[in-house]
């Protein structure tokens, strides 16, 4: 099981801030495809991946990164701090 977290408008579109996902996805991109296939709200959130960032165990990562050993995946828009 992987903890999947959503922030900002990704969270709003999916309607959840956190869930546990049973997945055999090898990479982040594979996990995204699994989620998109579930329901329209996931497809809407991940429609434009250029607008989505990902962190694996709280470190920024790329969509082709492997998920082996990862416990926490987070999806969110580009950051706007400061």
């Amino acid at each position, binding site marked *: 099981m992987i903890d999947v977290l959503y*922030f*900002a*408008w990704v969270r709003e579109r999916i309607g959840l801030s956190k869930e546990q996902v049973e997945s055999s996805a090898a990479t982040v991109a594979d996990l995204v495809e699994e989620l998109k296939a579930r329901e329209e709200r996931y497809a809407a959130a991940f429609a434009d991946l250029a607008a989505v960032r990902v*962190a694996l165990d709280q470190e*920024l990562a790329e969509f082709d990164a492997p998920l082996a050993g990862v416990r926490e995946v987070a999806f969110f828009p580009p950051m706007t*701090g400061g």
Partner: protein
Amino acid sequence: MRVRVQAEPFDFGAECGAFASGRADAGAVVSFAGIVRDDGGLARMELEHYPGMTERALQRIASEATRRWPLRDCLVIHRFGTMLPGETIMMVATAAPHRADAFAAAEFLMDYLKSRAPFWKKEFGADGAAWVAAKDADEKALGRWSED
């Protein structure tokens, strides 16, 4: 080197005063504060963050600044939650023997925390609410710190 992530307001002047006091080792202290700006009709801002990752990201950015410049100290405070126009969102302060390093390190901290620390701003006004979009210019600003 200190990093604080908090919902509560903080006193920018008091933080700067405490940071700068008794520093015989540093001839230069630079500080910056980010304020909630009302471009017209902003009622409030809500800042969401990623607890855990936020602190790690800010620590990493502060450590990197300390590696690149001969800083005697640096301080980063960033708030989350609801803020009104005019409230202080965040601050950085740097202390170094000479001002060029203190200025450069403060700019570096700002450039990195704007697009590498997991914060997201949502603005609420008379016309409803909207997430603040990241600016291409903020991403490009990181390019000038490339060590390659």
